[in-house]
C-alpha cells in the first residue's frame, strides 16, 4: 500500500514559453486514490497527460515500478485514461469499445468476450453491450469509458475530470461508484478535478497544484485542517483569515495580538519571532458566535444569514470591517435558533482549533517553507 508505484522527478513542461509544470516531484503510491486539485491552468491536466504519455516533459523523469517510462509512447505504458469527454469510438458498439484494448493485445476471442462481459458487469452495463455510444446517456457513456480503461487491468488509471459533464445527482452517484471500483479493483487512481469537495470526499491523498507547483500534498484532512499555505487554505473550503502580530514567543506557545485583543496559542511548526505577522485561520464551523454581553471575542453584527438545512451560515461584520463567515449546527435544544440581520454578536473560537500560517512574502520562499513543513507529514 505504501510502496511507490510511479515517481516524477524534477518534471518541467513549457508551452509557448509559459511554464506549466515547474520542476515537479511527486510519488504516487501503489493502490492509492490520488487527486490532483487546482484551479484551471494550474497544470493538473498537463500532469495527467504527461503520465498518460500524450505529452513529453521538457526535463525530468517518470519512473513506473523502477522502469523509466519518460520516453515510452502511450500505447506501451501499462496505464489507461478515462477522458473528460469519454472519447468513445462512435462507430463501435459498447462491446467493441471495451474490447478494443484487448483486441490490440491480440488476446484470444474467448478471453476477450469473458473479460469485456466482466468489465461491463462491473459498471452495470451488461445489457447495453450491443448499443452504440450515441444511444447512451452521459452517465452510461462515462461507465463505458471506465470499463474500457479498466478491462486492460492497468497498474494506474488516469481520470481527467471524468465527472464534470454530469449533473449534480449523477456526479454524487458516480463518486461513490468510482470509490467502490477503486476498492474492488485495487488499481491506483489518479483523478483530476477542480472541485475541492469531490477531491476531499474521494481521495486518499490530495495534491493541490498552482502554477505548475505542488502547494500541498496530504490527506484530505491535512489539506483541510492544516493547509500548508494561504493558497491551499483559500482554495480548499471556506476560511476566515485573522491578521495577527506576535507579541511573545515561548517554547510551547505564542501570544498573538489580533485587532487589539491578545490570545495565547500553541506554537506553530514554522519558525517564529516576536513582531512577526501571521495569519490565524479558522474554518466557518470552528467559529463560535457569542452573546454581545460576553467578555471575550470580537465585536460585530450579523449582516447576512443563510439557512442551509443542517447548518445556519451567517456573515458577521466586525467593527473594523472584516467579514467573518460562521457555520453553526442547529442545536437540538433550540430548534428555532436564528439571527436577526444587524443583531450585535461577538465572535471567538475554542483554543487550539485555529491554524497558523506565516505572512507570505515571495512565492519561492514560501514554497521552500512548505516543502520543509511538509516532509514529516508525508511519512505519517
Amino acid at each position, binding site marked *: 500500500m505504501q510502496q511507490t508505484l510511479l515517481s516524477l522527478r524534477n518534471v518541467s513542461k513549457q508551452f509557448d514559453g509559459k511554464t506549466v509544470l515547474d520542476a515537479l516531484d511527486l510519488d504516487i503510491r501503489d493502490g492509492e486514490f490520488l487527486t490532483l486539485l487546482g484551479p484551471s491552468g494550474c497544470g493538473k491536466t498537463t500532469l495527467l497527460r504527461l503520465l*498518460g*504519455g*500524450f505529452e513529453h516533459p521538457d526535463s525530468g523523469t517518470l519512473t513506473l515500478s523502477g522502469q523509466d517510462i519518460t520516453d515510452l509512447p*502511450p500505447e506501451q505504458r501499462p496505464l*489507461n485514461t478515462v477522458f473528460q*469527454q469519454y*472519447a468513445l*469510438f*462512435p462507430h463501435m458498439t459498447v462491446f467493441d469499445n471495451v474490447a478494443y484494448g484487448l483486441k490490440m493485445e491480440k488476446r484470444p476471442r474467448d478471453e476477450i468476450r469473458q473479460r469485456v462481459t466482466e468489465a461491463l458487469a462491473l459498471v452495470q452495463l451488461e445489457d447495453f453491450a450491443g448499443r452504440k455510444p*450515441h444511444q447512451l446517456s452521459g452517465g452510461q457513456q462515462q461507465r463505458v469509458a471506465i470499463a474500457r480503461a479498466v478491462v486492460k487491468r492497468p497498474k494506474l488509471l488516469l481520470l481527467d475530470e471524468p465527472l464534470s459533464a454530469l449533473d449534480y445527482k449523477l456526479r454524487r452517484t458516480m463518486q461513490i461508484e468510482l470509490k467502490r471500483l477503486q476498492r474492488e479493483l485495487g488499481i491506483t487512481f489518479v483523478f483530476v478535478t477542480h472541485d475541492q469537495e469531490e477531491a476531499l470526499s474521494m481521495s486518499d491523498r490530495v495534491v493541490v497544484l498552482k502554477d505548475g507547483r505542488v502547494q500541498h500534498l496530504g490527506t484530505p484532512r491535512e489539506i483541510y485542517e492544516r493547509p500548508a499555505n494561504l493558497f491551499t487554505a483559500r482554495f480548499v473550503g471556506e476560511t476566515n483569515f485573522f491578521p495577527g502580530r506576535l507579541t511573545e514567543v515561548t517554547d510551547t506557545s505564542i501570544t498573538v495580538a489580533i485587532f487589539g485583543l491578545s490570545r495565547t496559542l500553541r506554537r506553530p511548526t514554522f519558525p517564529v519571532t516576536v513582531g512577526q505577522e501571521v495569519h490565524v485561520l479558522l474554518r466557518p464551523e470552528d467559529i463560535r458566535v457569542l452573546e454581545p454581553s460576553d467578555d471575550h471575542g470580537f465585536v460585530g453584527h450579523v449582516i447576512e444569514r443563510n439557512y442551509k438545512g443542517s447548518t445556519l451560515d451567517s456573515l458577521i461584520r466586525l467593527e473594523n470591517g472584516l467579514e467573518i463567515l460562521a457555520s453553526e449546527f442547529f442545536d437540538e435544544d433550540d430548534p428555532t435558533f436564528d439571527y436577526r440581520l444587524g443583531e450585535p454578536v461577538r465572535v471567538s473560537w475554542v483554543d487550539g482549533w485555529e491554524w497558523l500560517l506565516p505572512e507570505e512574502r515571495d512565492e519561492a520562499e514560501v514554497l521552500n517553507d512548505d516543502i520543509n513543513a511538509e516532509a514529516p507529514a508525508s511519512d505519517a
Partner: protein
Amino acid sequence: MHNSHRQPFRTAVLVLVWGWLLVLVLAPNLLVVGTSVLTRDPLSFLSLPLTLENYARLIDPLYLEVFLHSLYMAAVTTVCCLVIGYPFAWALSRLSKRQQTLLIFLLIVPFWTNSLVRTYALKLLLATNGLINNGLLAIGLIDEPLTLLYTELAVIIGLVYLLLPFMILPLYSVFEDLRDELLLASHDLGAGRWPTFIHVVVPLTLPGVLAGVLLVLLPAMGLFFVADILGGSRNLLVGNVIKSQFLDARDWPFGAAASVLLTAAMALLLFAHRLSRRRLGEEAEV
C-alpha cells in the same frame, strides 16, 4: 411564437426552394427519362411508340467498351484524387485556423476561371512543344518531346486537376470532425499509429471518402470537354457519347438513355454513402 412573424419569409423561401427543385431539377430529369423511352424521329427528334430499345442498345459492345474505358479512366482519376486528397485534407485539418482558411481559399481560387479555359491551358502545358516538354528538354532530362497530349494520361491529368478540390473538401470536413481525443484514446488502449489509422481514422472518415468518390467518379465520366480537348478520338468518356448522340447523331432517345444510366449509377453511390453515414450513428451526421 416567433414563427408567426417569419411566416411570409418562411413561405417565400420554401416556395423558392421547391420551385427551383421542381423546375430546374425534377422537370429536366423527368424529361430525360421520358425521352429515353421514346423513339428517334429524324424530323421532330422524338416520336412514339414507347420503347426500351435505347437501353438495349447501351449494352452494344461498341458502347460497352466506351463505357468501361470511361469508367476505368474515371476510377484511376478517383484513386489519384483520393491518394493526393486524403493526406492533404488530414494535414489541412491539423493546421492553425488561419492557415486552413488561406489554403482553402487557394483551393477555391481556380473555380473563378472557367474549367474549359483551364483545360485549354493544360493543353498548352502538355503539347509536344508545350511548357513541360520544353522544360524537360532544356534541363536535358529527355532528348525528344514526350507524347503527353491526346493520351489517356492527359485525360486523367486533366480530370484529376479539375476534380481534386471536390475530393479534398468533403474529406476536410470529416477530418475537422475527427476529435483528437479519439486518437489519443486509441493510443492509450495500446494501438500504435497503423492500427489506430485502420480501426479509428479510416472508419470515421469513410463518409468523407464516399462523398469525395461520389463527387469525383461520376463527374469524371461526364466531363466530355476534357476528353475532347486532351484525349483525342480514342479516349472517350460517357459524356462524349451523350454529347455526340444529342448534337451529332441527333439520336436524343439514345443519349437520354445513356444519361439515365449515369444518373442511376450516381443514385446507387448516394445510397451507399447514406448507409455508411447511418452506420456511424447520429453523432457523425453533419
